[in-house]
């Protein structure tokens, strides 16, 4: 077990290294002189020189990378040009809304997805099953921004149940916060709900065909007991791995959903940073999101190995 975790962590460090190189090299994609590009025509020579030093462009490439990476590890990504304060401060301000939205949609997609997938597998071939499959296919095909707009049109404009856009802090007004959260969370969770439902369904179908299920039926166990206590429990082991991958979907989808609902999270921040040519901020957000993503995936994999003895003992799938 310990060996497995060490192995995974070493692998993660290698991956992190390459990721940091990719993010660092982004700045080299800027056409022409980055300093002139960032500051525009009117900048004085003094301002240019200052930015050049801040970006470290006057030193050799390897030194630039090492310095940048060294600071990045301690969370220092320099100053944001757009907000005129440390990049990390701008990011911290936006973390709350982003985490809230991600967590809410994860909750929706995991509960709804597993529930729908289980029901579909238990009633295989019925209209309900077809409906779940159709829904999951639509879930991954319908773009989040369109779903969001349509939900606003239906449930905020035609039927004014929910507010169309905006954010309310959980701590100032909990009820309002939930009202604002509903539509964005549904929009963001829809695609993942489909994937989880589909995956749970196929996993459940496989489990239901195993011998131990026949035994369970033969023992005279009730239908819910067989389906939920036996088959679903064993299916969940595999479904857990999917949750790690879903997080990537959520982190990507977040950018778009935040834009649709004017949700003040990291997604909106990165768009503002892109338009404001605040490259340190863009780099920091991209790297940080990716690190969060792989760290969560590592946790998922480790918890998975706890659940599945085959992996714990070092045998591969």
């Amino acid at each position, binding site marked *: 077990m310990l060996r497995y975790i060490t192995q995974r962590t070493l*692998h993660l460090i290698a991956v992190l290294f390459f990721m940091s190189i990719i993010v660092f090299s982004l700045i080299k994609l800027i056409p022409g002189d980055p300093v002139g590009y960032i500051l525009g025509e009117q900048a004085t020579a003094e301002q240019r020189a200052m930015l050049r030093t801040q970006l470290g462009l006057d030193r050799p490439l390897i030194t630039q990378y090492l310095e940048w990476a060294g600071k990045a590890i301690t969370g220092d990504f320099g100053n944001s040009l757009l907000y005129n304060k440390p990049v990390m401060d701008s990011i911290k301000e936006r973390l709350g809304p982003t985490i809230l939205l991600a967590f809410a949609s994860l909750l929706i997609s995991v509960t709804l997805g597993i529930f729908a997938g289980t029901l579909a597998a238990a009633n295989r071939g019925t209209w309900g099953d077809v409906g779940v499959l159709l829904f999951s296919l639509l879930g*991954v095909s319908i773009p*989040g921004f369109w779903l969001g707009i349509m939900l606003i049109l239906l449930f905020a404009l035609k039927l004014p149940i929910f507010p169309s856009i905006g954010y309310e802090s959980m701590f100032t007004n909990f009820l309002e916060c939930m009202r604002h959260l509903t539509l964005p969370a549904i929009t963001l969770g829809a695609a993942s709900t489909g*994937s989880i439902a589909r995956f749970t369904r196929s996993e459940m179908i496989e489990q239901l065909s195993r011998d131990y299920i026949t035994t369970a039926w033969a023992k005279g166990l009730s239908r819910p007991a067989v389906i939920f206590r036996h088959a679903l429990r064993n299916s969940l082991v595999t479904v857990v791995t999917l949750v790690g*991958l879903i997080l990537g979907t959520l982190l990507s989808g977040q950018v778009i959903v935040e834009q649709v609902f004017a949700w003040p999270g990291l997604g909106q921040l990165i768009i503002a940073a892109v338009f404001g040519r605040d490259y340190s901020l863009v780099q920091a957000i991209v790297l940080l999101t*990716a690190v969060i993503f792989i760290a969560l995936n590592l946790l998922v994999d480790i918890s998975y190995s706890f659940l599945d003895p085959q992996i714990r003992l070092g045998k591969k799938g």
Partner: protein
Amino acid sequence: MVDQDRTEIIMSESSPPGFLTAGEVSRWTILAARVKANKNLVVGGVLVLIFVFMAIFAPYLTRYDPNKRDFSARFAQPSMHHLMGTDHFGRDTFSRILFGTRISFEVGIVSVLIGMIIGVIIGAVAAYWGGFIDSLLMRMMDGLLAFPQLLLAIALVAFMTTNLGTVSIAIGVVFIPRFARVMRSAVLVEMKREYVEAAKAIGQSGFKILFRHIGPSTISPVVVLATLVFAFAVLTEAGLSFLGLGLPPPNPSWGRMLDEARHYLSASGWTSFFPGVAISLAVLGFNLLGDGFRDFLDPKMSGAVDMGKRESLGD
């Protein structure tokens, strides 16, 4: 919206293909029957063909210039004059969707080609030469794969001036690790076969073995992945345009149409409705076609493509 590992999820679920036992019937009859039994292939193929038709014949299918403004006809409801109504500039939505198909497909084709060519080469080299090269290349691929997909595309366009080429590159780069993984596992499977050993024994060069012998057997999984990834390319292009990071206006990109229309939701819901339908149907079409291809080309393939994921969990 963007499904991180849709390919792997799909690949892990195999449905039985429409096999017939060969009696006296001709090959073509069997082929036709197999295609007919494969609903995904038929529905997906028809949807994709409709969009291909729209893209090619766009100028002949409409009377309106997609960028012609007509302020006397702002927010027209769908009617015989304007099949899908008009937007805030009085531009014909149907024409803009037709011409938007071209942009979606151009970006889709270029980005999938970029991802496929680079990814396939990396995957083949990694699998064939193995050892240190394999570890190095695949760790690099893991690094690329570790970014949430849309975020990586956003980061790439952020640092470039946006045009058809750069948007396609940004989306294509996201696909490289996917193709590399699928190609690598396909080549690894083939390399255990006896014919590779035989080719080695008679002293053929590595490149010759790789291209002439192993190459053809890896086409199926790559084609399946290319189709599935095309769906994602359409979705990502629309997403980038929606965020204002796609092709500059007045290009009638589906995503940009949605972004412009959503500000006039209470004036006209129709203008937001149709571009989304176009995106959804195009994405659905390629998803179904990819699933259909997978079942059709090689019913056993689901396992081979799934290997990429298992390995990443294992090491």
